[in-house]
C-alpha cells in the first residue's frame, strides 16, 4: 500500500497555490505569481509521475490484475450505517493515468502562459484560477466516492466559468461563461438525480462498493434496481442514463454541446487546458469509472452512450469543416474526438478481449490530450502573432513561425490518424472495437475520421500556406522559450505516445490486454485520412476559388453546417418562445397580480385605516384626559348595570 500523504499532495499543492495567489497575489506576488504556481505544479507533476510509476510497476498489480486501491479515506458526512460522503483517494489504472495527464498538460499550460499572458493586469488572478481548476480536476479523478466526484465536478464547472469569463470586460466572454455554466449545470441536475437513484438502490455512495453491489447478478441491490421500473425502463438504466446526461453536459455531447464553441472566448491556454485536454473528458472519465455497471447490468444505457457519441462525432466534424475561427474549428474537433471516446466506451463490453473499446477510449483520451493541447497552444502562438482568430487574416505563416509550424503539423498528422503518430494507434483501436461490435457506429466513425483529416488540414494549410493576408508591419518574434518549450514537449508526446502498450496498463477488468496490430484493417482509415489531407491540400494550399465553388455547389448543407445546424437557434426558440411565453410569462403575471396584489392590499388597507384613526393621537393633553374619563365612566357603567 502506498503512502497516502504524498498522493494527497498532488491535488493540494495547486489548491495551496490558488489560496496564496487568490488572497495575496495582487499585493505581494504581482510578478512572481506565475513562477510560484508553475513550481508548485511541477512538484505535483513529479509526484504524479512517481505515483504512476509506483502503481503500474510496483504495488498496483496483484496476480496480474490491477487493483483498485484506496490509500486514503476520510469520512466527511455520515448519513447512516454504510452511507457516508467520504473524501478519499482511489488509485486504479484510469485515475493514475488521469493524474499524469492532468498534471502534465496543466504544467505545460502553466509554462506556456508565462509567455502568453505576460503583461496581463490580472496575472496572479489568472494563475490562481488555473490552480483552482487543476485542484478540482485532480480531486475529480481520484474521487473514491460518487458524491465526492460530484463536489469536484461542480468545482470544475465553477473554475471553468471563471476562466472562460476571464476577460470580463468583453460582453461575448461574459455571455459565453454564463452559457457554459447554465448548460453544464442543467446537465448536472441529471447527474445528481442519477447519483440519488444509484445510491438509493445500492445503499452506498462508495464507488467500489457501489460497483460491486450493482454488478454481481445475485445481489439483492441489483435485483431491486432492475425490478423497479419507470416508463418501461428499469431504475438502474434510468440512473445510469441520468449520470450520463451529466457527463454529456461536461463533455459537450450532442445536444448539450452548444457551450463548448462559445467557451473559446477564454484565454487560449485555458482553452487548451480545460476545453480540450482535461475538463471535457470528465464525462468520458465518469462513464469509464462506472463502466462495469454500464457494461454488465445496463447494456441499453451503454448503447445510448455509444450512439450519442457517434452522432456527436459526426455532427461536430461536419460543422468543423465550415467554421472560419480557428479556435472554433478546434473546439468542434474536440467535440468530435470526445464523441470517439464515448462511442468507444459504448461499443465495449466488460472484460477480456471484448473490453477493447474501453482500453481504446482511455488510450484515445491520453493521446488526444497531447495533440489537442498542442493544437490549441499552437493556435495560441498564431493568435499571439496575428492578433486575430479568423482564418482569412492568416496564411503563409510557416516562414515566420517555424517551430509552431512543425509542431502544429505533427499534431495535425496525429489527429488525422496518420501512422506512426499517436492518434493513429488509438483511433485504430477504437475503429477495431466499433467494427467488432457495432457496424453502424463503425461506418459513422470511418466517415468522421476522413472528415477529421480534411478539416484539420484545411486549418493547417489556411494558416501556414495559402496567401499572406496580414500586413507586414510590426513583426514580433515567435514567442520566447517559455512558449516554445511546451509546444516541443507536447509534440514529442503527440508523436510518440502511440507506442505505449496501453492495453498492458489500462483495461476494463484490470487484466493485461494484448493489442496486436491489424495491418489489413488499418488500410481503410489511413487511406481515407490521406485522401482527406490531399483534398484539403488541393483546395487550400494555394489561394483559389475551389472552396467557394464547393460551398456554392453544396450550398444547403454548407449553410446549415456553417450555422452549426441551427442548434443554437433551436435552443433559443425553445427557451425564448416556448418556455418564456408559456411558463415564464404566466408565472410572472401570477406573481405580479396575485402574490404581489395580496401583499399590496394588506399594506394599503393598514395604511387607510391608520389614516382614518390617526386623529385620535392629537397631542392635546386634555383631549386624552377626556378619553380617559369617558373610558372610566364607561367601565363604571358596565360594572354597575351589566355586570351584576
Amino acid at each position, binding site marked *: 500500500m502506498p503512502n497516502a500523504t504524498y498522493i494527497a499532495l498532488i491535488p493540494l499543492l495547486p489548491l495551496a497555490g490558488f489560496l496564496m495567489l487568490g488572497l495575496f497575489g495582487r499585493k505581494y506576488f504581482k510578478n512572481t505569481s506565475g513562477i510560484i504556481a508553475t513550481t508548485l505544479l511541477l512538484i505535483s507533476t513529479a509526484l504524479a509521475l512517481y505515483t504512476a510509476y509506483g502503481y503500474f510497476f510496483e504495488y498496483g498489480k496483484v496476480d496480474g490484475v490491477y487493483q483498485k486501491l484506496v490509500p486514503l479515506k476520510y469520512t466527511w458526512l455520515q448519513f447512516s450505517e454504510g452511507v457516508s460522503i467520504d473524501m478519499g483517494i482511489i488509485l486504479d489504472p484510469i485515475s493514475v493515468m488521469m493524474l499524469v495527464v492532468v498534471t502534465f498538460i496543466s504544467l505545460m499550460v502553466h509554462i506556456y502562459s508565462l509567455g502568453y499572458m505576460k503583461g496581463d493586469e490580472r496575472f496572479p488572478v489568472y494563475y490562481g484560477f488555473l490552480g483552482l481548476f487543476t485542484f478540482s480536476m485532480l480531486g475529480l479523478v481520484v474521487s473514491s466516492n460518487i458524491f465526492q466526484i460530484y463536489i469536484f465536478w461542480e468545482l470544475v464547472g465553477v473554475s471553468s466559468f471563471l476562466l472562460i469569463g476571464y476577460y470580463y470586460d468583453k460582453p461575448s466572454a461574459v455571455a459565453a461563461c454564463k452559457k457554459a455554466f447554465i448548460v453544464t449545470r442543467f446537465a448536472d441536475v441529471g447527474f445528481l438525480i442519477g447519483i440519488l437513484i444509484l445510491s438509493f438502490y445500492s445503499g452506498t455512495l462508495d464507488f467500489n462498493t457501489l460497483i460491486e453491489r450493482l454488478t454481481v447478478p445475485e445481489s439483492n441491490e441489483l435485483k431491486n434496481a432492475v425490478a423497479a421500473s419507470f416508463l418501461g425502463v428499469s431504475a438502474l438504466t434510468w440512473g445510469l442514463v441520468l449520470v450520463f446526461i451529466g457527463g454529456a453536459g461536461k463533455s459537450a455531447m450532442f445536444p448539450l454541446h452548444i457551450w463548448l464553441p462559445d467557451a473559446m472566448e477564454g484565454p487560449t491556454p485555458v482553452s487548451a487546458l480545460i476545453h480540450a485536454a482535461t475538463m471535457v473528458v470528465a464525462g468520458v472519465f465518469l462513464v469509464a469509472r462506472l463502466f462495469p455497471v454500464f457494461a454488465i447490468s445496463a447494456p441499453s444505457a451503454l448503447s445510448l452512450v455509444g450512439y450519442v457519441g457517434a452522432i456527436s462525432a459526426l455532427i461536430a466534424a461536419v460543422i468543423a469543416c465550415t467554421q472560419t475561427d480557428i479556435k472554433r474549428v478546434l473546439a468542434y474537433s474536440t467535440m468530435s474526438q470526445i464523441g470517439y471516446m464515448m462511442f468507444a466506451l459504448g461499443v465495449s463490453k466488460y472484460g477480456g478481449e471484448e473490453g477493447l473499446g474501453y482500453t481504446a477510449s482511455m488510450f484515445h483520451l491520453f493521446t488526444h490530450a497531447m495533440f489537442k493541447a498542442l493544437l490549441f497552444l499552437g493556435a495560441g502562438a498564431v493568435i499571439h502573432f496575428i492578433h486575430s482568430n479568423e482564418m482569412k487574416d492568416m496564411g503563409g505563416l510557416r516562414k515566420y513561425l517555424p517551430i509552431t509550424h512543425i509542431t502544429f503539423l505533427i499534431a495535425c498528422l496525429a489527429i488525422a490518424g496518420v501512422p506512426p503518430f499517436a492518434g493513429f494507434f488509438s483511433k485504430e483501436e477504437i475503429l477495431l472495437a466499433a467494427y467488432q461490435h457495432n457496424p453502424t457506429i463503425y461506418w459513422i466513425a470511418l466517415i468522421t475520421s476522413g472528415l477529421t483529416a480534411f478539416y484539420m488540414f484545411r486549418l493547417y494549410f489556411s494558416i501556414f500556406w495559402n496567401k499572406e493576408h496580414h500586413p507586414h508591419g510590426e513583426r514580433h518574434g515567435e514567442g520566447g522559450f517559455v512558449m516554445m518549450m511546451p509546444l516541443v514537449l507536447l509534440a514529442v508526446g503527440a508523436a510518440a505516445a502511440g507506442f505505449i502498450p496501453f492495453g498492458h496498463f489500462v483495461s476494463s477488468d484490470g487484466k493485461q490486454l494484448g493489442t496486436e496490430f491489424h495491418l489489413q484493417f488499418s488500410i481503410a482509415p489511413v487511406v481515407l485520412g490521406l485522401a482527406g489531407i490531399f483534398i484539403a491540400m488541393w483546395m487550400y494550399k494555394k489561394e483559389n476559388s475551389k472552396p467557394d465553388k464547393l460551398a456554392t455547389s453544396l450550398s444547403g448543407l454548407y449553410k446549415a453546417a456553417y450555422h452549426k445546424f441551427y442548434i443554437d437557434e433551436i435552443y433559443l426558440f425553445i427557451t425564448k418562445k416556448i418556455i418564456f411565453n408559456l411558463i415564464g410569462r404566466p408565472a410572472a403575471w401570477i406573481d405580479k397580480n396575485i402574490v404581489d396584489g395580496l401583499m399590496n392590499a394588506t399594506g394599503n388597507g393598514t395604511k387607510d385605516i391608520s389614516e382614518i384613526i390617526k*386623529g385620535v393621537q392629537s*397631542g392635546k393633553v386634555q383631549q386624552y*384626559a377626556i378619553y380617559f374619563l369617558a373610558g372610566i365612566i364607561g367601565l363604571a357603567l358596565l360594572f354597575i348595570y351589566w355586570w351584576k
Partner: protein
Amino acid sequence: MIEPGLYHILFISATLFFIGVYGFFTRRNLVTMLMSVELILNSVNLNFIAFNKYLWYDRLDGVFFTIFIIAIAAAEAAVAIAIIINLYRSHKSIDVEDAEEMKY
C-alpha cells in the same frame, strides 16, 4: 342642627371631584391644572376618611390610604412642577395648548 352624616361628606367629596375634573378640562394653564388634580386627589381622601369613620370605625385602613395618597400627591406635585419648569424653559410658556408636538 343636624349631625353631618356619610351622605353629606360624600356629596362634598363628589362636588370637589367634579370641580377638579372641570378645572382640569377647562383650564389651559398647567399650574391650574395641577391644582385641579390635587382637588381630585383630596376628594378621594375625603371618601376614604368618611368611609373609615362611618362604616368601619374600628379599623384604620382608610386613614393609612389617605396618608399614602398625601405622600404620593406631594411627590407628584414635585415631578409635575419640574416638568412645568422644563416646559417653560423650552417653550417660554406654560400653556398646555402650546405643547402639542407629540402627535401623529
